[in-house]
């Protein structure tokens, strides 16, 4: 059924810290690596070594520059992937029932055996989270590593999405955003996590933590505004005099 559940038991999702993300693309690379053998495998590559390579990725890292008047410009590295929205209209537009949102954890998935490849779901997603697999003729998207997070063959600490595990700066966090006590919920509350394009009403589960205020003036870090010339006396003063001649 492509009608959305009125309530999901958990709201599993990601919290992404735009303050610490350095834009290294490790999350995107590890996502591709895991998922090309995972639930929606394979993630095709077209002309991978040619001039115009193309392919399906679930995660894309953009870099933006913010000009802020007289303050220094800000670089924002912005990983973009499925936000597993509460009001996921990519699901409701699906004519076949291939797209669905799980009641137990809120994860949005595609059953590629039912997908007819009409692409309407990708049009309905404001965030560009879905990419079409032209080889198989079906739509693919982030599964929140459904095949990792419940995988009992993995050690408990490894039961997290591939992008989260690989992030070298700890900018990605995974958890239940329905539970106010969870680390991700508390992080979101403490850092004023944001929804993307809230004006469209998709109610994304994933949150983005805006960059912290930068320390721009020397006074902010406790340093003097200007260095005061040192006046040396005694032996050092004599040496300074000799060398300054």
């Amino acid at each position, binding site marked *: *059924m*492509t*009608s959305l559940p009125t309530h999901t038991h958990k709201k599993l999702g990601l919290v992404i810290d*735009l303050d610490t993300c350095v*834009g290294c*693309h490790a999350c*995107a690379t590890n996502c591709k690596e895991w998922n090309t053998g995972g639930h929606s495998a394979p993630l095709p590559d077209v002309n991978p070594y040619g001039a*115009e*390579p*193309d392919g399906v*990725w679930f995660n*894309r890292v*953009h*870099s*933006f*520059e*913010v*000009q*802020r008047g007289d303050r220094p410009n*800000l*670089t*924002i590295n*912005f990983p*973009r992937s499925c936000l597993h929205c509460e009001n996921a*209209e990519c699901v*409701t*537009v*699906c*004519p*076949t*029932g291939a797209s669905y949102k799980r009641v137990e954890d809120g994860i949005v998935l595609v059953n590629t055996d*039912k*997908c*007819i*490849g009409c*692409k*309407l779901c*990708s*049009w*309905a*997603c*404001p*965030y*560009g989270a879905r990419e*079409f697999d*032209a080889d198989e*003729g*079906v*739509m693919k998207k982030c599964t929140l590593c459904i095949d990792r997070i419940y995988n009992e063959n993995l050690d408990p600490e490894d039961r997290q999405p591939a992008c989260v595990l690989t992030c070298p700066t700890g900018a990605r966090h995974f958890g239940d955003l329905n539970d106010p006590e969870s680390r991700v919920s508390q992080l979101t509350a403490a850092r004023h996590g*944001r*929804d*993307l*394009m809230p*004006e*469209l*009403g*998709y109610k994304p589960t994933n949150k*983005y933590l*805006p*960059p912290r205020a930068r320390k721009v003036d020397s006074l902010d870090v406790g340093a003097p505004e200007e260095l005061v010339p040192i006046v040396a006396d005694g032996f050092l003063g004599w040496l300074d005099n000799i060398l300054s001649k």
Partner: protein
Amino acid sequence: MHPAFSVIFFTTCSGAGYGLLALMGIFGAAGMVPADPWMGFTGLAFALSLVSIGLLASTFHLGRPERAWRALTQWRSSWLAREGVMAVLTYIPAGLFGLGWVWFEDTTGLWAVAGVVAAILAWLTVMSTAMIYRSLKPIHQWHNDWTVPSYVLLSVMSGAVLMSLLIQLFGVSNPYIQGLTVVTLALGWGLKTMYWKFNERTSGLPTVNSAIGIDAAGDVSVLELPHTSANYLMKEMGFKVAQKHADKLRRISHLTGFALPLVFSLGAMFVEGYSALAFVVLAWALCSIGIIVERWLFFAEAKHTVNLYYGASGA
């Protein structure tokens, strides 16, 4: 949005087909056109062929056309599924109505009911098609109150232009059908002009700031793209048409889609015989070109919010 040939062909072709089918159903049921079997056959066969070719064309853009039947299952939530269900259902009363008109030479009683039901279902199908676009919040140029009336009116309009041609072919003169053609061309022209004006002066709410969750004051620009060449999103949703080309195409659409067919349809009311036939043929040929251009612009000028991530200033 990428203006895919199959979808442009489908919406214009089946739009005209459903328009003609509906008008034949209404005028036939009302007894306002003679129940001539050859006219009934020609009109209904042409209408249903346009509809069927259009529907078939729409399956060409599917990744897995052999699974197309699955698209009928989710009518509870999906306008695309509703469109499919309506399209299939329309064939039943349309077929019955055709049987009455062509075989029994009768468009009254229960046959008339079939005609009216076929007309209603045809209009609901076109409305569902329009709702597919109307319901997409990421595309401001579609997610507005002009989309559905435009689609329905343009479908009735192309149907009326075809119906005028049909009755002229069979030497039937009907001021109501010819009048309807003129009126719908005028209304369609006005509505589409207002649609274009609306899209010229408004844009969607999201900005690149809200798209990346940075609402602090500051101009956001792309520093580096995530990939070195165009991906699916950029090919499917990043289509851009140069403003000067769009302006020229819009003028072509104004002229061939509405203005000239209006003149020729009006002219056909005041002349007879072959001149009248020539006028309605010209009206139909020009209108078809104009509506295809209009539909191309409908897709080509639609801006998806995903472009905000790729450097678009607005959506």
